[in-house]
């Protein structure tokens, strides 16, 4: 199975277009909780064309994908923070820098050192490329 980075754009399309957006997308998608949590922000600012019911439906669709094992949204817990925020004896400047957005900081943190075998380098590259083009 191919692993892909679960981009914010894809999440946004699921909320806007519902189930049809998921047809044929059977790859395993790995993403960051920060992108998921950015959806309400964009909705409130009128950047998403959604009714309140589509908002709930989109949330359920994504939860279904998570429960069926096709989506994985890494959350930022204490253990992950401990493992990622420091590099030897100093702050890891790839995360601890205000040169990137707060959202990207979280995404880098949750994707960088998580001890999962599927945390392939290509996911990290995809994540960086997506943020480069989006921000």
């Amino acid at each position, binding site marked *: 199975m191919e692993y892909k980075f679960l981009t914010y754009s894809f999440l946004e399309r699921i909320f806007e277009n519902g189930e049809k957006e998921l047809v044929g997308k059977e790859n395993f998608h790995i993403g960051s*909780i*920060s992108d*998921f*949590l*950015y*959806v*309400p*922000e964009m*909705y*409130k*600012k009128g950047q998403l064309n959604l009714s309140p019911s589509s*908002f709930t439906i989109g*949330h359920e669709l994504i939860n279904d994908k998570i429960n069926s094992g096709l989506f994985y*949204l890494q*959350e*930022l*817990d*204490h253990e*992950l*923070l*401990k493992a990622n*925020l*420091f590099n030897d*004896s*100093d*702050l890891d400047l790839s*995360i*601890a*820098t*205000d040169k990137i957005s*707060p*959202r990207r*900081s*979280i995404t880098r*943190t949750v994707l960088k050192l998580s001890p999962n075998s599927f945390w392939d380098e290509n996911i990290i590259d995809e994540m960086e490329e997506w943020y480069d083009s989006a921000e």
Partner: protein
Amino acid sequence: MRILLMKWKNGMTVLNDYTDIVLDTNILSDFLAIYFENSISIGEKFVSKYRVNNDFASKINTIILDHINDGISKYGKIVASNFAFIELARRFDECSSGRFTVDQFRAFIDSPPEWFVLESVSSDLFFELYRLPSHVLFKEEKQTIEWADAIHCATALIRGNRSLFATSDSRLNVIQIFNHRLLCIT
């Protein structure tokens, strides 16, 4: 039966059973500065300093003492989002202002006191973020509540409907959800 509602006395919030206090990034910075400058880890008391006023310092001491006395706090815990620690790291020099070192910051994250919780950034925040307004009318101006600020607000909300939110952002005072729950530190 214990009183579950937040009391409001003389314009000040009162700690109640199992009331957590959630800190935003600016307050977390001052909290850590006092924590290390005043040797809190070896039993000294929190004092009013920087943006931490007397009322807030007193509440923190109540929580700490309660833990020390019987190991089980009936007053809840001090809480900050893991995102607050990332934000602090992103602006470390500005936030620490020489008041604590990277080593001390790391030591706190590695082994926080038992009365302190580093709250996850999780999907639990999703609907709380949805509930929060994107803008507030403050001093007759429409002002945006940015995503990063909203994460702290949502963290306070998921800690239960009795949690208090310690913030330096007085714009949040006008958000209805936080009615009587803000410790606005100026």
